[in-house]
Every structure is written in structure tokens, then in C-alpha cells.
């Protein structure tokens, strides 16, 4: 077995999973309760290595299921600890019930989701079916494009969660990010430890005066709790930006709510996750040929960065919205539905092409992006929706 010493060099070659594990190691996490599932496994293995060598100073609880992973994190957070877990696909589906418990109890828990398709048929490769099934479970949902961003956002997630009393999920594409080695510029242990600090004091099971948590709520009170939770999620955007800004001062890196490439382009491809890079490279090439195409890559999905998204629509004629999951029987995929309801809410009209692609690890190459960009430029109808079969 390999020995994993704390990496002291600033620039390291890490997979996405390893980057997440290092972020957890550095962030003074008290409790990691996790269950292995492809493609998240390396996160758990590395944290176990860190625990074995003493580099991770919290408790590592190797639970017997993802349901228990989230349950143990909830217990830990109720006791006032900083808790982290990681999962994917079936594991996220199995812990689904507990996702609502974590957010409803307003607990600061962080979780990495190594996005993967859902059974059936069985498929271990990447898409966003897993997280889209849980998108309304009350978690802040962040998406990353590369290993370094995964590292950054995991560190930030503890501060965000503890400031707004909501759990935070960091989504990284299975295999594409979890298993690809990339250069990651890590911050020093001291800098990260200083940045995350310790969890602020909150009501807990350890308080001297006994407190009760998780009471039953009847129809007279339940909706008030949900209203409060909804406002907290929407309002969390301010805190997320603050934390990102503070982190940027230390690292020089700010990923923000969304990245706009070639603002004002007639055609904008709206994306989540790692394939945005492919779309950007393609858009850059096409610019050389005189074509006006751009990319909006969302770093936050919950809360939805409404203002920043609307600002990005200036001069845009067509939004090509790229979904890596299916909302069966719905007018469009989940991301497209979000965007369309936002457009309607603000009375904004744009052509929308809702594309379902990349399911179960189906590739997305530059030639695919080019075909789609060109199609969007020519399309005449105000709304279209189709499955796109790109590269293998």
C-alpha cells in the first residue's frame, strides 16, 4: 500500500478525488463517515490513509451504507462537529431520505458527489442523474470543472455551510474529474486551517442545558420551517460570494457563481461541470473562423445565481441548455427547466434548445460541440428539445 504523506509542495499532480481528500485533510474536519462507491472510492481511501498516518486528525467512521454515512454525519453535526462525506449515484439515492433530514435540521455538513449515472441499466460512468434526483433536497449545490476547483470549493464549503446553517454538496464529474490527474496548486496546511477556523458555536447535543432536536411539526408550523429554509437557501448566495472572495485573497482563485466565455455571443451553451472546458475550447476555435458562440458554465445550481445569469443574457439570441440527465415526461431536462422558468419569471424571451447528452459516460468532443453550436446558429424555432449522440 502506498504511503500518503501530507503534500508540502505547492503544485501537485492530483486526481479530482485526491484533491477532495486533501481539502478535507486540511480543513480541521472532525468526522468523516463514508461508504465506498465508484467513482468516489479514492476520496475515502485517501482519507483513510491520512487517518492511518495521523495526517487526518478527525474520526473516520467506515459505515455500512450511505444511509448510515449521512445519518452519522447528522449525528456528528448535532453534537457540534464538522462533518464530511462523499458518495455517488446509487449511494446518493440510498441516502436520499437523509439529505432532507440534514437540510431540514439546518446542519452544516459537506459532501462531495462524484457524479455518476443511476441503475437501471447499471452504469458506473458519468452523468448528472444522481444529483438531479436530489436537487430539491435543500442542499447548496456547487459544480466544478476541474480538480483544483474541487479542492477550492470543498475548503470553502465548510465556511459556507457553517455560516448559513445549510449542508453543501460539491459535484465533480465521475471519472472525467475524479480519476483524471491534473495539476492542483494546494495551499499550505496552515493557511487552510486558518481560513476554515473552527465551527462557530451553535446549539448542540453537548450543551449543558438539554436541548431537543428534530421535533415533529404539525400543519400549523411545518410550512413556516420550509419557508425559512427556502429563504436561507436563496439568501446563501451572499455568503457564498463572501467566502469565495475571502478565499480568492489567499489563493488568487475565484470561481464564482458562473463563468461566462465570450459574453454577448449570439449562441450561448449553458453547461454544468467538466464538459464546459470542451465547449470553451471549441468556441475559441470557432471565433477564429468568425463565428460568435459562447459558454455559460454554472458553478452554483442551488442557489441558482439568478442575477448573474440574467446579466449574461445581454446580446444573446439562443440558449442551448445542456442536460446530462432526463426528467422523464417533463417539458425539458432539469437545467433547461430551471433556466426557462427564470426567463419566464423576468419576462425575458430567448430561443431555447434543450439538449440531453452525455448520459452514462457518453463522450462530448470538440466536434460534437461544434456541430451543436452550428445547429443552434441556424435553428429557427423558439423551442426545441432532443437527445444528442456525440462522440463515444
Amino acid at each position: 500500500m502506498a504511503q500518503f504523506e501530507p503534500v508540502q509542495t505547492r503544485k501537485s499532480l492530483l486526481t479530482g478525488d485526491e484533491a477532495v481528500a486533501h481539502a478535507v485533510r486540511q480543513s480541521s474536519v472532525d468526522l468523516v463517515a463514508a461508504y465506498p462507491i465508484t467513482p468516489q472510492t479514492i476520496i475515502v481511501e485517501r482519507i483513510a490513509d491520512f487517518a492511518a498516518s495521523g495526517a487526518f486528525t478527525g474520526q473516520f467512521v467506515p459505515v455500512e451504507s450511505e444511509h448510515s454515512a449521512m445519518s452519522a454525519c447528522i449525528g456528528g453535526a448535532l453534537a457540534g462537529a464538522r462533518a464530511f462525506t462523499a458518495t455517488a449515484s446509487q449511494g446518493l439515492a440510498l441516502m436520499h431520505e437523509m439529505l432532507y433530514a440534514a437540510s431540514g435540521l439546518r446542519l452544516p455538513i459537506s459532501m462531495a458527489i462524484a457524479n455518476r449515472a443511476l441503475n437501471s441499466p447499471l452504469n458506473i460512468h458519468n452523468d448528472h442523474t444522481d444529483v438531479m434526483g436530489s436537487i430539491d433536497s435543500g442542499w447548496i449545490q456547487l459544480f466544478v470543472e476541474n480538480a483544483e476547483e474541487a479542492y477550492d470549493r470543498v475548503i470553502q464549503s465548510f465556511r459556507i455551510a457553517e455560516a448559513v446553517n445549510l449542508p453543501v454538496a460539491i459535484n465533480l464529474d465521475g471519472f472525467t474529474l475524479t480519476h483524471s490527474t491534473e495539476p492542483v496548486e494546494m495551499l499550505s496546511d496552515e493557511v487552510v486551517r486558518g481560513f476554515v477556523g473552527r465551527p462557530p458555536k451553535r446549539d448542540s447535543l453537548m450543551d449543558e442545558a438539554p436541548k431537543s432536536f428534530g421535533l415533529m411539526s404539525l400543519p400549523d408550523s411545518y410550512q413556516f420551517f420550509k419557508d425559512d429554509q427556502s429563504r436561507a437557501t436563496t439568501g446563501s448566495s451572499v455568503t457564498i460570494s463572501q467566502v469565495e472572495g475571502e478565499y480568492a485573497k489567499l489563493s488568487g482563485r475565484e470561481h464564482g457563481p458562473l463563468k461566462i466565455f465570450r459574453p454577448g455571443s449570439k449562441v450561448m451553451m449553458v453547461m454544468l461541470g467538466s464538459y464546459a472546458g470542451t465547449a470553451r475550447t471549441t468556441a475559441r476555435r470557432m471565433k477564429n473562423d468568425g463565428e460568435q458562440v459562447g459558454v455559460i458554465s454554472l458553478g452554483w445550481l442551488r442557489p441558482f445565481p439568478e442575477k448573474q445569469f440574467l446579466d449574461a443574457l445581454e446580446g444573446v439570441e439562443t440558449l442551448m441548455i445542456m442536460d446530462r440527465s432526463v426528467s422523464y415526461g417533463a417539458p425539458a431536462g432539469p437545467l433547461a427547466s430551471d433556466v426557462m422558468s427564470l426567463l419566464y419569471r423576468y419576462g425575458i424571451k430567448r430561443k431555447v434548445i434543450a439538449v440531453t447528452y452525455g448520459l452514462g459516460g457518453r463522450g462530448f468532443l470538440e466536434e460534437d460541440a461544434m456541430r451543436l453550436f452550428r445547429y443552434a446558429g441556424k435553428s429557427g424555432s423558439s423551442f426545441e428539445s432532443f437527445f444528442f449522440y456525440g462522440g463515444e
Partner: protein
Amino acid sequence: MEENSKLSQFQPVKSIFEINREERMAPGHRACAGCGPMIAVRQILQSLDVKPVVISATGCVEVTTSTYPDSAWLVPWAHVAFENSAAVASGVEAAMHALKVRGELKEERPVIALAGDGGTFDIGLQALSGALERGHRMLYVCYDNEAYMNTGIQRSSATPFGAWTTTSPVGKEWPGKAEIKKDIMGIVVAHGTPYAATASISHWKDLMTKVRKAVSQNGPTFLHVYAPCNRGWRFEPKDTVEVAKRAVETRFFPLYEVENGRYRITVPVAKPRPLEDFLSLQGRFSHLLKPENLEVLKELKSIVEERWSKINAAASVQVQT
């Protein structure tokens, strides 16, 4: 795991004057009159001097004690879901340990996971098994009222053979529940759990001593508490303790403990009362006392006898060695 010296000492309960007099379950909760599980909870909480953290599974005890904005719990308490009290308690225990190591927590509290038979024998079995195997220092209490009472008396794998429930009704084809009660103690003991015991609300000194003994162990422990439900078992609220007592005296529910694999019967029943003394108090067994169900009654009697002799044999073998 680190020893907490204050917790590792234990004194058996010999008289009412030795228990903690401080009430830890506030009056005014919404449990039924004559509720067996609530008697169990009161006895458990007053066994200890220190205030434990209690993690309740969804169920009768949970819903009747915690309707927002009221809580009857005078100890730190949380409810998360039905099937995961052992997993939540695992997280609490691990977190306490982490916080203590960081110097942010002075003393760890005893952690008690509290679930009914449905939350233990059925839907919570996996979480329980995981917690036992991982060795968290916690006491898992199953208050057993032998069916899903909170949802309206549906059978669980803890429901005894022959009992009527709303999903094991009595009819021409069915004798009540056709399957025997799951041996939860056997399952727990098979994990190598340092301490596991049965207890009954009718034998409070035995129950409270076992709670103290369990909490003194540096590892996972299990208490299987017999807690009659007058609504589900169909008896008068005044008879709750009497029913529990007769369950012990007829050998229907043997009281014993298993400490590091060693079996010991803590309440010996040399001359058992006839099983009918236990059954006749309860509507759920009334069909068994009719002549046409004589064979079913005989089978139940043999199940009870077999269970007793198995435990008795396990206890005797060790006495001889």
C-alpha cells in the same frame, strides 16, 4: 477508545433510594395511559446520574414526546428518522471523541439509541449491526411492544407466533401471526457485543442495574426491554406492569444477560406459571384459548419452552466450566 472513568464504575440498583430522583421525562407528553414504553424510558433515564444523550428512532415514544414546540425530554435528545438511530448515535459518539481530542469538550456523555421493535428488528437492523461491529461506545435500547403500534398495530418480526395484529389477522386460514419472533439477542450476541441483556418494566431493579452495567462498558451494548402496549395487545391500561410481570413468570420473556459471551439468567423462573395466565389478559391472544385453536396454542407453548431451554442451557454450560 478512551476510558471515561466516571462512567466505567457501576453500582447495581438494590433499592428505590439508590436511583436518580430527578425526573428526566417531563409530565404532559402525549403517550397513552398505561404506556409500557414510557415506563421503560423513565426507568432507563433515572438509572443514571449523568445525563445521557438520547437518539430516538421514529415511533411511539418519539412522536408522543416531541410535538413542536414542546419536548418532554429533560436530557439532550434528537430524532432523525426511523431506521438509523444506531447510525446517528455512532456519529454523536465519534464526534464527541473528536471534540474531546481537540480539547473542545470536557466530558463525553453516555449515548443511548432508543428504538422500538420495528426500528430494531426490522428496518433498523442494518444500522444496528453496523454500529455494533464498529464498536461505538453506546447503549442501544430496543423497547419491544411486539408490533408497529405507532401506525396502528401491524405485525413486525418481533411479533410473537399466534398473535393477532392488523396485518396478521385471525381468520379461517390464518391463526394470527404464523411466524416466530426473531431472536434479536442472538443476532446481537453474534456480533461479539460486550454486553447484551433483556429486561422488563415489571422488574425495575433488574432493568436499571442492566442500564448501569451497559453504560459502564467501553463499547457497544444492547438492552432488549419488554414494554407492553395496552392499545395493541388489547388489555386494560391498569394491567401494563402485570402483563409484563406475567411474561417473565410464564417464561414467555426470559430475563438474562450476556456479558462477553457468558450467559446468565438474572431472574430465574423455577416454577413457571401456566402460559394461559399471560395470554388470557390480552385480546391479541384471545383466539388461542378457543378449543379450535388448541394446536396453535400447543405450538406457541413449545416455542416458549424451547426458547427458555436454549437460554438456560447456554447459562448452565458456563456455570459448569
